[in-house]
Protein backbone atom coordinates (compact mmCIF):
# COMPACT_ATOMS: atom_id res chain seq x y z
CA UNK A 1 0.00 0.00 0.00
CA UNK A 2 1.28 3.34 -0.93
CA UNK A 3 0.04 6.28 0.95
CA UNK A 4 0.80 9.69 -0.41
CA UNK A 5 0.36 12.64 1.82
CA UNK A 6 0.62 16.05 0.25
CA UNK A 7 0.35 19.42 1.91
CA UNK A 8 1.88 22.83 2.12
CA UNK A 9 4.93 23.34 4.20
CA UNK A 10 4.42 25.15 7.45
CA UNK A 11 6.47 28.22 6.73
CA UNK A 12 6.05 29.86 10.06
CA UNK A 13 9.18 28.24 11.45
CA UNK A 14 11.28 28.09 8.28
CA UNK A 15 12.86 31.22 6.83
CA UNK A 16 16.08 32.18 5.13
CA UNK A 17 16.06 35.38 7.17
CA UNK A 18 17.50 34.85 10.62
CA UNK A 19 15.32 35.72 13.50
CA UNK A 20 15.64 39.29 14.78
CA UNK A 21 17.41 40.44 11.62
CA UNK A 22 16.13 43.25 9.47
CA UNK A 23 17.13 43.77 5.86
CA UNK A 24 16.47 46.74 3.66
CA UNK A 25 17.64 48.82 0.76
CA UNK A 26 17.55 52.43 -0.42
CA UNK A 27 17.85 53.66 -3.97
CA UNK A 28 18.30 57.37 -4.59
CA UNK A 29 18.41 58.68 -8.11
CA UNK A 30 18.65 62.13 -9.60
CA UNK A 31 18.74 62.92 -13.29
CA UNK A 32 18.53 66.22 -15.06
CA UNK A 33 18.88 67.72 -18.49
CA UNK A 34 19.06 71.39 -19.33
CA UNK A 35 19.26 73.29 -22.54
CA UNK A 36 18.30 76.38 -24.45
CA UNK A 37 15.82 77.19 -27.13
CA UNK A 38 17.67 77.84 -30.37
CA UNK A 39 15.88 78.55 -33.58
CA UNK A 40 12.64 76.62 -33.41
CA UNK A 41 13.75 73.68 -31.33
CA UNK A 42 15.39 73.01 -27.94
CA UNK A 43 19.05 72.02 -27.72
CA UNK A 44 20.27 69.99 -24.72
CA UNK A 45 23.46 71.57 -23.37
CA UNK A 46 24.15 69.35 -20.39
CA UNK A 47 22.79 66.34 -18.58
CA UNK A 48 23.69 64.02 -15.74
CA UNK A 49 22.41 60.98 -13.90
CA UNK A 50 23.30 60.10 -10.33
CA UNK A 51 22.31 56.97 -8.48
CA UNK A 52 23.14 55.48 -5.09
CA UNK A 53 22.05 52.11 -3.80
CA UNK A 54 22.40 50.99 -0.21
CA UNK A 55 21.83 47.55 1.24
CA UNK A 56 21.65 47.19 4.99
CA UNK A 57 21.25 44.44 7.53
CA UNK A 58 20.70 44.93 11.21
CA UNK A 59 20.19 42.86 14.28
CA UNK A 60 20.03 43.78 17.95
CA UNK A 61 23.81 43.31 18.10
CA UNK A 62 25.25 44.56 14.79
CA UNK A 63 24.46 46.79 11.80
CA UNK A 64 25.98 46.50 8.36
CA UNK A 65 25.66 48.87 5.43
CA UNK A 66 27.08 48.79 1.94
CA UNK A 67 26.54 51.59 -0.56
CA UNK A 68 27.48 52.02 -4.16
CA UNK A 69 27.08 55.28 -6.03
CA UNK A 70 27.53 56.32 -9.61
CA UNK A 71 27.60 59.62 -11.42
CA UNK A 72 27.41 59.76 -15.15
CA UNK A 73 27.42 62.86 -17.30
CA UNK A 74 28.39 63.75 -20.80
CA UNK A 75 32.11 63.76 -19.90
CA UNK A 76 32.73 60.94 -17.47
CA UNK A 77 31.38 58.13 -15.33
CA UNK A 78 32.60 57.42 -11.81
CA UNK A 79 31.68 54.78 -9.25
CA UNK A 80 32.16 54.92 -5.50
CA UNK A 81 31.76 52.50 -2.65
CA UNK A 82 31.17 52.77 1.04
CA UNK A 83 30.93 50.33 3.92
CA UNK A 84 29.96 50.64 7.54
CA UNK A 85 29.71 48.29 10.47
CA UNK A 86 28.35 48.99 13.93
CA UNK A 87 28.43 46.78 16.98
CA UNK A 88 25.75 47.45 19.58
CA UNK A 89 25.17 46.39 23.12
CA UNK A 90 21.89 44.48 22.90
CA UNK A 91 19.00 46.36 24.37
CA UNK A 92 20.96 49.58 25.00
CA UNK A 93 21.09 51.62 21.80
CA UNK A 94 23.35 54.24 23.34
CA UNK A 95 26.24 51.84 23.86
CA UNK A 96 28.09 50.69 20.79
CA UNK A 97 30.93 51.33 18.37
CA UNK A 98 31.18 51.60 14.64
CA UNK A 99 33.66 51.88 11.82
CA UNK A 100 33.14 52.99 8.26
CA UNK A 101 35.22 53.21 5.15
CA UNK A 102 34.68 55.61 2.29
CA UNK A 103 36.32 54.85 -1.00
CA UNK A 104 37.00 58.08 -2.88
CA UNK A 105 34.60 59.75 -0.63
CA UNK A 106 31.50 61.22 -2.18
CA UNK A 107 29.55 60.48 0.99
CA UNK A 108 28.81 62.46 4.07
CA UNK A 109 30.71 61.00 6.97
CA UNK A 110 28.57 59.19 9.46
CA UNK A 111 25.34 59.18 7.50
CA UNK A 112 23.82 55.86 6.64
CA UNK A 113 21.42 57.05 3.99
CA UNK A 114 22.52 57.06 0.37
CA UNK A 115 23.22 60.76 0.28
CA UNK A 116 25.88 61.97 -2.07
CA UNK A 117 28.12 64.96 -1.80
CA UNK A 118 28.92 65.67 -5.39
CA UNK A 119 30.51 69.01 -5.94
CA UNK A 120 31.63 69.58 -2.38
CA UNK A 121 35.20 68.52 -3.06
CA UNK A 122 37.06 67.10 -5.99
CA UNK A 123 35.24 63.79 -5.99
CA UNK A 124 38.22 61.53 -6.62
CA UNK A 125 40.67 63.29 -4.33
CA UNK A 126 39.68 62.10 -0.86
CA UNK A 127 39.75 58.89 1.05
CA UNK A 128 38.28 58.80 4.49
CA UNK A 129 38.20 56.46 7.44
CA UNK A 130 36.42 56.88 10.71
CA UNK A 131 35.14 55.34 13.87
CA UNK A 132 32.09 56.25 15.85
CA UNK A 133 30.86 55.06 19.19
CA UNK A 134 28.15 55.53 21.73
CA UNK A 135 29.32 55.71 25.30
CA UNK A 136 27.97 55.18 28.74
CA UNK A 137 25.24 57.56 29.91
CA UNK A 138 24.34 58.59 26.41
CA UNK A 139 27.58 60.26 25.31
CA UNK A 140 28.37 59.81 21.65
CA UNK A 141 31.52 60.44 19.70
CA UNK A 142 33.07 60.02 16.31
CA UNK A 143 36.48 60.46 14.78
CA UNK A 144 37.11 60.94 11.10
CA UNK A 145 40.35 61.21 9.18
CA UNK A 146 40.48 62.14 5.50
CA UNK A 147 43.36 62.36 3.08
CA UNK A 148 43.24 64.70 0.15
CA UNK A 149 46.16 65.37 -2.17
CA UNK A 150 48.65 65.01 0.67
CA UNK A 151 46.67 67.09 3.13
CA UNK A 152 45.16 65.41 6.16
CA UNK A 153 41.93 66.49 7.79
CA UNK A 154 41.04 64.94 11.12
CA UNK A 155 37.87 65.62 13.02
CA UNK A 156 36.73 64.66 16.51
CA UNK A 157 33.18 65.18 17.78
CA UNK A 158 31.83 64.43 21.23
CA UNK A 159 28.15 64.89 22.08
CA UNK A 160 26.70 64.77 25.54
CA UNK A 161 23.16 63.63 26.23
CA UNK A 162 20.62 66.10 27.53
CA UNK A 163 21.40 66.15 31.26
CA UNK A 164 18.14 67.54 32.46
CA UNK A 165 19.18 71.19 32.36
CA UNK A 166 22.12 71.32 29.95
CA UNK A 167 23.91 69.66 27.07
CA UNK A 168 27.48 70.05 25.82
CA UNK A 169 29.05 69.33 22.42
CA UNK A 170 32.73 69.53 21.57
CA UNK A 171 34.34 69.44 18.13
CA UNK A 172 37.96 69.60 17.10
CA UNK A 173 39.11 69.77 13.50
CA UNK A 174 42.72 69.86 12.33
CA UNK A 175 44.05 70.32 8.81
CA UNK A 176 47.68 69.39 8.20
CA UNK A 177 48.86 70.62 4.84
CA UNK A 178 51.37 68.72 2.76
CA UNK A 179 53.05 71.93 1.68
CA UNK A 180 55.70 72.85 4.27
CA UNK A 181 55.04 76.52 3.61
CA UNK A 182 51.33 76.04 4.12
CA UNK A 183 49.57 76.83 7.35
CA UNK A 184 48.13 74.13 9.57
CA UNK A 185 44.77 75.01 11.08
CA UNK A 186 43.23 73.65 14.26
CA UNK A 187 39.76 74.65 15.34
CA UNK A 188 38.15 73.84 18.69
CA UNK A 189 34.47 74.52 19.27
CA UNK A 190 32.61 74.08 22.55
CA UNK A 191 28.85 74.46 22.50
CA UNK A 192 26.85 74.63 25.72
CA UNK A 193 23.09 74.93 25.89
CA UNK A 194 21.07 75.20 29.05
CA UNK A 195 17.39 75.25 29.83
CA UNK A 196 16.25 76.70 33.14
CA UNK A 197 12.84 77.76 34.34
CA UNK A 198 12.92 81.41 33.28
CA UNK A 199 15.71 81.55 30.71
CA UNK A 200 17.74 79.34 28.43
CA UNK A 201 21.38 80.30 27.80
CA UNK A 202 23.24 79.25 24.67
CA UNK A 203 26.99 79.65 24.47
CA UNK A 204 29.50 78.81 21.77
CA UNK A 205 33.21 79.25 22.42
CA UNK A 206 35.54 78.67 19.51
CA UNK A 207 39.28 78.95 19.14
CA UNK A 208 41.82 78.38 16.43
CA UNK A 209 45.21 77.43 17.84
CA UNK A 210 48.33 79.58 17.59
CA UNK A 211 48.81 83.32 18.03
CA UNK A 212 46.83 85.76 20.11
CA UNK A 213 43.24 86.77 19.84
CA UNK A 214 42.33 83.73 17.81
CA UNK A 215 39.15 82.95 19.64
CA UNK A 216 35.51 83.82 19.44
CA UNK A 217 32.45 83.62 21.59
CA UNK A 218 28.78 83.77 20.74
CA UNK A 219 26.01 83.80 23.35
CA UNK A 220 22.25 84.27 23.51
CA UNK A 221 19.69 84.19 26.27
CA UNK A 222 16.46 82.56 25.16
CA UNK A 223 13.09 81.82 26.71
CA UNK A 224 12.71 85.24 28.36
CA UNK A 225 8.99 85.92 28.06
CA UNK A 226 7.91 89.23 29.63
CA UNK A 227 4.42 88.67 28.23
CA UNK A 228 3.02 85.18 28.06
CA UNK A 229 -0.71 84.62 27.60
CA UNK A 230 -2.94 81.98 26.10
CA UNK A 231 -3.14 84.05 22.91
CA UNK A 232 0.60 84.20 22.48
CA UNK A 233 3.82 85.49 23.93
CA UNK A 234 6.64 87.92 23.38
CA UNK A 235 10.18 86.63 23.64
CA UNK A 236 13.09 88.98 24.26
CA UNK A 237 16.46 87.67 23.07
CA UNK A 238 19.67 89.47 24.05
CA UNK A 239 22.85 88.25 22.42
CA UNK A 240 26.48 89.02 21.70
CA UNK A 241 29.07 87.83 19.20
CA UNK A 242 32.75 88.57 19.53
CA UNK A 243 35.70 87.36 17.48
CA UNK A 244 39.40 88.16 17.80
CA UNK A 245 41.18 90.14 15.11
CA UNK A 246 43.23 87.26 13.78
CA UNK A 247 40.79 84.43 14.13
CA UNK A 248 40.77 81.86 11.35
CA UNK A 249 37.85 79.61 10.63
CA UNK A 250 36.76 77.74 7.58
CA UNK A 251 33.67 79.36 6.18
CA UNK A 252 32.33 82.54 7.70
CA UNK A 253 30.90 81.46 11.04
CA UNK A 254 32.98 84.13 12.75
CA UNK A 255 34.26 87.21 10.97
CA UNK A 256 37.64 88.45 12.25
CA UNK A 257 37.26 91.39 14.58
CA UNK A 258 33.47 91.19 14.68
CA UNK A 259 31.99 92.57 17.89
CA UNK A 260 28.23 92.77 17.86
CA UNK A 261 25.53 93.14 20.49
CA UNK A 262 21.98 92.20 19.53
CA UNK A 263 18.57 92.59 21.09
CA UNK A 264 15.43 91.13 19.59
CA UNK A 265 11.76 90.98 20.53
CA UNK A 266 9.49 88.45 18.85
CA UNK A 267 5.75 87.98 19.00
CA UNK A 268 4.42 84.49 18.41
CA UNK A 269 0.79 83.57 18.62
CA UNK A 270 -0.22 80.20 19.95
CA UNK A 271 -3.69 80.37 18.47
CA UNK A 272 -3.33 82.15 15.16
CA UNK A 273 -1.09 82.29 12.13
CA UNK A 274 0.38 85.67 12.90
CA UNK A 275 3.78 86.84 14.07
CA UNK A 276 6.01 89.89 14.27
CA UNK A 277 9.52 90.66 15.35
CA UNK A 278 12.10 93.41 15.59
CA UNK A 279 15.83 93.08 16.10
CA UNK A 280 18.51 95.66 16.69
CA UNK A 281 22.21 95.11 16.12
CA UNK A 282 25.03 97.32 17.37
CA UNK A 283 28.45 96.87 15.82
CA UNK A 284 31.06 97.85 18.41
CA UNK A 285 33.98 97.93 15.99
CA UNK A 286 32.41 99.71 13.02
CA UNK A 287 29.01 100.74 11.75
CA UNK A 288 28.87 98.19 8.98
CA UNK A 289 26.59 95.77 10.87
CA UNK A 290 24.65 98.25 13.00
CA UNK A 291 21.01 98.47 12.11
CA UNK A 292 17.44 97.47 12.74
CA UNK A 293 15.44 94.73 11.05
CA UNK A 294 11.81 93.77 11.41
CA UNK A 295 9.54 91.09 10.04
CA UNK A 296 5.87 90.26 10.18
CA UNK A 297 3.67 87.58 8.73
CA UNK A 298 0.03 86.59 8.77
CA UNK A 299 -2.36 84.18 7.15
CA UNK A 300 -5.90 85.45 7.23
CA UNK A 301 -9.12 83.50 7.33
CA UNK A 302 -9.80 84.78 3.85
CA UNK A 303 -6.79 82.84 2.59
CA UNK A 304 -4.39 85.73 2.14
CA UNK A 305 -0.81 85.12 3.19
CA UNK A 306 1.21 88.26 3.86
CA UNK A 307 4.93 88.39 4.54
CA UNK A 308 7.04 91.47 5.25
CA UNK A 309 10.72 92.02 6.01
CA UNK A 310 12.40 95.37 6.53
CA UNK A 311 15.97 96.28 7.32
CA UNK A 312 17.80 99.56 7.74
CA UNK A 313 21.50 99.82 8.49
CA UNK A 314 23.73 102.57 9.84
CA UNK A 315 25.74 102.83 6.64
CA UNK A 316 22.60 103.90 4.79
CA UNK A 317 21.68 100.58 3.18
CA UNK A 318 18.08 99.50 3.40
CA UNK A 319 15.96 96.59 2.26
CA UNK A 320 12.26 95.90 2.19
CA UNK A 321 10.31 92.88 1.02
CA UNK A 322 6.55 92.61 1.00
CA UNK A 323 4.50 89.83 -0.50
CA UNK A 324 0.84 89.02 -0.48
CA UNK A 325 -0.75 85.95 -1.96
CA UNK A 326 -4.31 84.68 -2.22
CA UNK A 327 -4.35 80.92 -1.84
CA UNK A 328 -6.85 78.23 -2.56
CA UNK A 329 -6.61 74.48 -2.94
CA UNK A 330 -6.64 74.72 -6.70
CA UNK A 331 -5.06 78.09 -7.48
CA UNK A 332 -3.17 81.03 -6.05
CA UNK A 333 -2.11 84.47 -7.15
CA UNK A 334 0.18 86.98 -5.55
CA UNK A 335 2.47 89.92 -5.87
CA UNK A 336 5.79 90.72 -4.21
CA UNK A 337 7.90 93.84 -4.06
CA UNK A 338 11.57 93.83 -3.11
CA UNK A 339 13.46 97.04 -2.55
CA UNK A 340 17.20 96.98 -2.06
CA UNK A 341 18.57 100.50 -1.75
CA UNK A 342 17.69 102.21 -5.02
CA UNK A 343 16.49 99.17 -6.90
CA UNK A 344 12.88 97.97 -6.82
CA UNK A 345 11.71 94.73 -8.33
CA UNK A 346 8.13 93.59 -8.62
CA UNK A 347 7.14 89.96 -9.08
CA UNK A 348 3.71 88.64 -9.91
CA UNK A 349 2.94 84.96 -9.57
CA UNK A 350 0.11 82.53 -10.13
CA UNK A 351 -0.28 78.81 -9.71
CA UNK A 352 -2.76 76.16 -10.71
CA UNK A 353 -3.15 72.78 -9.01
CA UNK A 354 -5.35 70.46 -11.08
CA UNK A 355 -4.78 67.61 -8.62
CA UNK A 356 -3.01 67.20 -5.30
CA UNK A 357 0.29 66.00 -6.73
CA UNK A 358 0.59 68.36 -9.71
CA UNK A 359 1.26 72.10 -9.63
CA UNK A 360 1.97 74.60 -12.38
CA UNK A 361 3.44 77.97 -11.41
CA UNK A 362 4.20 81.08 -13.39
CA UNK A 363 6.09 84.10 -12.13
CA UNK A 364 6.83 87.31 -13.99
CA UNK A 365 9.15 89.97 -12.61
CA UNK A 366 10.53 93.30 -13.65
CA UNK A 367 12.39 96.32 -12.30
CA UNK A 368 10.25 99.32 -11.41
CA UNK A 369 12.28 101.69 -13.55
CA UNK A 370 12.86 102.42 -17.20
CA UNK A 371 15.17 99.44 -17.75
CA UNK A 372 12.41 97.00 -16.68
CA UNK A 373 14.66 93.93 -17.16
CA UNK A 374 11.71 91.53 -17.37
CA UNK A 375 12.01 87.85 -16.57
CA UNK A 376 9.61 84.97 -16.23
CA UNK A 377 9.67 81.40 -15.02
CA UNK A 378 7.23 78.60 -15.64
CA UNK A 379 7.48 75.40 -13.64
CA UNK A 380 5.34 72.29 -13.69
CA UNK A 381 6.03 69.93 -10.81
CA UNK A 382 4.71 66.56 -9.81
CA UNK A 383 5.20 64.60 -6.61
CA UNK A 384 4.16 61.00 -6.95
CA UNK A 385 5.08 59.53 -3.62
CA UNK A 386 8.87 59.51 -3.34
CA UNK A 387 9.38 60.56 -6.98
CA UNK A 388 9.46 64.19 -8.02
CA UNK A 389 9.59 65.65 -11.47
CA UNK A 390 10.20 69.22 -12.53
CA UNK A 391 9.84 70.82 -15.92
CA UNK A 392 10.89 74.43 -16.03
CA UNK A 393 11.28 77.18 -18.60
CA UNK A 394 13.11 80.36 -17.66
CA UNK A 395 13.49 83.48 -19.69
CA UNK A 396 15.32 86.71 -18.93
CA UNK A 397 15.47 89.85 -20.99
CA UNK A 398 17.91 89.67 -23.90
CA UNK A 399 18.62 85.93 -23.50
CA UNK A 400 17.32 82.74 -25.03
CA UNK A 401 14.81 80.72 -23.02
CA UNK A 402 16.38 77.93 -21.02
CA UNK A 403 14.76 74.60 -20.26
CA UNK A 404 15.25 72.14 -17.42
CA UNK A 405 13.91 68.69 -16.73
CA UNK A 406 14.69 67.05 -13.40
CA UNK A 407 13.69 63.68 -12.01
CA UNK A 408 14.50 62.72 -8.41
CA UNK A 409 13.38 59.76 -6.36
CA UNK A 410 14.13 57.58 -3.39
CA UNK A 411 12.88 54.03 -3.05
CA UNK A 412 13.10 52.00 0.11
Amino acid at each position, binding site marked *: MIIIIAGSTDSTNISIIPENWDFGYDC*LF*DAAASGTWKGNHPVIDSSYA*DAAVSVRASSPEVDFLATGAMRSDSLSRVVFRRGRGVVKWPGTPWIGAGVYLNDQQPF*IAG*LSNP*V*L*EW*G*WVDIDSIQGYGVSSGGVLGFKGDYLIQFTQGDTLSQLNVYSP*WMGFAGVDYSRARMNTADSTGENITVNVLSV*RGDFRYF*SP*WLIVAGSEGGEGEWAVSA*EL*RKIHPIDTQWGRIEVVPGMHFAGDSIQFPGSAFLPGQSVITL*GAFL*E*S*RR*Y*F*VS*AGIKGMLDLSSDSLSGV*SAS*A*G*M*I*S*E*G*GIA*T*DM*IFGYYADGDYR*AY*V*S*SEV*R*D*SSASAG*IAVEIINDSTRVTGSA*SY*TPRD*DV*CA*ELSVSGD*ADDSLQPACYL*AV*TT*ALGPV*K*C*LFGIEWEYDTSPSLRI*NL*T*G*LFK
Partner: protein
Amino acid sequence: MMRVITAAIILLLLTTAGCSFLTPMQKPVEQDNRLLLWLPGASSVQVLSDWNDWGGSVAAGGIIDPVCGRMEKDDSGLWTIDLEGLPGGVYRYAFYVNGYKWIRDPVNPETAEFEGRTVSIIMVSK
Protein backbone atom coordinates in the same frame (compact mmCIF):
# COMPACT_ATOMS: atom_id res chain seq x y z
CA MET B 1 11.95 109.70 -7.23
CA MET B 2 9.43 108.05 -9.54
CA ARG B 3 10.61 104.63 -8.46
CA VAL B 4 10.19 105.47 -4.80
CA ILE B 5 6.65 106.72 -5.39
CA THR B 6 5.83 103.60 -7.40
CA ALA B 7 7.19 101.37 -4.69
CA ALA B 8 5.32 103.28 -2.01
CA ILE B 9 2.05 102.90 -3.89
CA ILE B 10 2.62 99.19 -4.37
CA LEU B 11 3.52 98.78 -0.72
CA LEU B 12 0.38 100.62 0.28
CA LEU B 13 -1.72 98.39 -1.98
CA LEU B 14 -0.13 95.28 -0.60
CA THR B 15 -0.60 96.37 2.96
CA THR B 16 -4.19 97.26 2.25
CA ALA B 17 -4.76 93.88 0.64
CA GLY B 18 -3.16 92.16 3.59
CA CYS B 19 -5.33 94.09 6.01
CA SER B 20 -8.55 93.54 4.14
CA PHE B 21 -8.96 90.23 5.94
CA LEU B 22 -7.64 91.16 9.32
CA THR B 23 -8.84 88.08 11.11
CA PRO B 24 -5.93 85.68 11.24
CA MET B 25 -6.44 82.02 10.57
CA GLN B 26 -6.64 79.85 13.65
CA LYS B 27 -4.02 77.20 14.29
CA PRO B 28 -4.96 73.64 15.15
CA VAL B 29 -5.17 73.15 18.90
CA GLU B 30 -2.51 70.47 19.08
CA GLN B 31 0.40 72.30 17.45
CA ASP B 32 3.18 71.83 20.01
CA ASN B 33 6.37 70.29 18.64
CA ARG B 34 5.18 70.63 15.09
CA LEU B 35 5.96 72.91 12.19
CA LEU B 36 2.98 74.14 10.20
CA LEU B 37 2.62 75.66 6.77
CA TRP B 38 -0.68 76.52 5.15
CA LEU B 39 -0.15 76.05 1.44
CA PRO B 40 -3.14 74.20 -0.03
CA GLY B 41 -2.02 74.28 -3.65
CA ALA B 42 1.47 72.80 -3.21
CA SER B 43 2.23 69.37 -4.61
CA SER B 44 4.92 68.66 -2.03
CA VAL B 45 6.54 70.40 0.94
CA GLN B 46 9.69 69.38 2.81
CA VAL B 47 11.44 70.91 5.80
CA LEU B 48 15.14 71.40 5.14
CA SER B 49 17.19 72.27 8.16
CA ASP B 50 20.39 71.99 10.11
CA TRP B 51 18.95 68.90 11.78
CA ASN B 52 18.65 66.96 8.54
CA ASP B 53 21.70 68.40 6.75
CA TRP B 54 19.36 70.48 4.61
CA GLY B 55 18.06 67.35 2.96
CA GLY B 56 21.60 66.44 2.02
CA SER B 57 21.97 69.60 -0.03
CA VAL B 58 24.90 71.03 1.93
CA ALA B 59 27.22 68.23 1.05
CA ALA B 60 25.31 66.81 -1.83
CA GLY B 61 25.99 69.65 -4.19
CA GLY B 62 22.32 70.29 -4.67
CA ILE B 63 20.84 66.81 -4.55
CA ILE B 64 18.07 66.89 -1.99
CA ASP B 65 16.67 63.63 -0.70
CA PRO B 66 13.05 63.79 -1.95
CA VAL B 67 11.61 62.23 1.19
CA CYS B 68 13.81 63.94 3.77
CA GLY B 69 11.73 66.14 6.07
CA ARG B 70 8.60 65.45 4.07
CA MET B 71 5.49 67.13 5.48
CA GLU B 72 2.00 65.71 5.44
CA LYS B 73 -1.02 67.66 4.17
CA ASP B 74 -4.48 67.55 5.71
CA ASP B 75 -7.80 68.35 4.06
CA SER B 76 -7.58 72.04 4.94
CA GLY B 77 -4.29 72.45 3.08
CA LEU B 78 -2.16 72.54 6.22
CA TRP B 79 1.23 70.86 5.92
CA THR B 80 2.66 69.54 9.19
CA ILE B 81 5.72 67.73 10.47
CA ASP B 82 6.33 66.36 13.94
CA LEU B 83 9.55 67.45 15.66
CA GLU B 84 9.19 65.02 18.55
CA GLY B 85 12.49 63.42 19.42
CA LEU B 86 14.63 66.18 17.97
CA PRO B 87 17.69 66.92 20.17
CA GLY B 88 17.67 70.30 21.91
CA GLY B 89 19.28 73.10 19.97
CA VAL B 90 18.79 76.17 17.82
CA TYR B 91 18.11 75.20 14.25
CA ARG B 92 17.74 77.06 10.99
CA TYR B 93 15.07 75.73 8.65
CA ALA B 94 13.15 76.53 5.50
CA PHE B 95 10.28 75.01 3.58
CA TYR B 96 11.14 73.42 0.24
CA VAL B 97 8.02 73.67 -1.91
CA ASN B 98 7.24 71.67 -5.03
CA GLY B 99 10.78 70.36 -5.24
CA TYR B 100 12.45 73.61 -6.25
CA LYS B 101 11.30 76.63 -4.26
CA TRP B 102 12.67 77.73 -0.87
CA ILE B 103 10.49 79.81 1.43
CA ARG B 104 10.96 80.87 5.03
CA ASP B 105 8.28 80.24 7.64
CA PRO B 106 5.93 83.21 7.14
CA VAL B 107 4.69 83.14 10.74
CA ASN B 108 8.06 82.79 12.42
CA PRO B 109 9.58 86.24 13.01
CA GLU B 110 13.09 84.97 13.72
CA THR B 111 15.20 84.78 10.60
CA ALA B 112 18.75 83.85 9.67
CA GLU B 113 20.79 83.36 6.54
CA PHE B 114 21.64 80.12 4.79
CA GLU B 115 23.58 80.19 1.54
CA GLY B 116 22.22 83.60 0.69
CA ARG B 117 18.64 82.72 1.54
CA THR B 118 16.53 84.13 4.34
CA VAL B 119 15.46 81.17 6.46
CA SER B 120 13.79 80.74 9.85
CA ILE B 121 15.11 79.81 13.27
CA ILE B 122 13.52 77.52 15.82
CA MET B 123 14.70 76.67 19.30
CA VAL B 124 14.03 73.16 20.52
CA SER B 125 14.32 72.74 24.27
CA LYS B 126 14.87 69.45 26.04
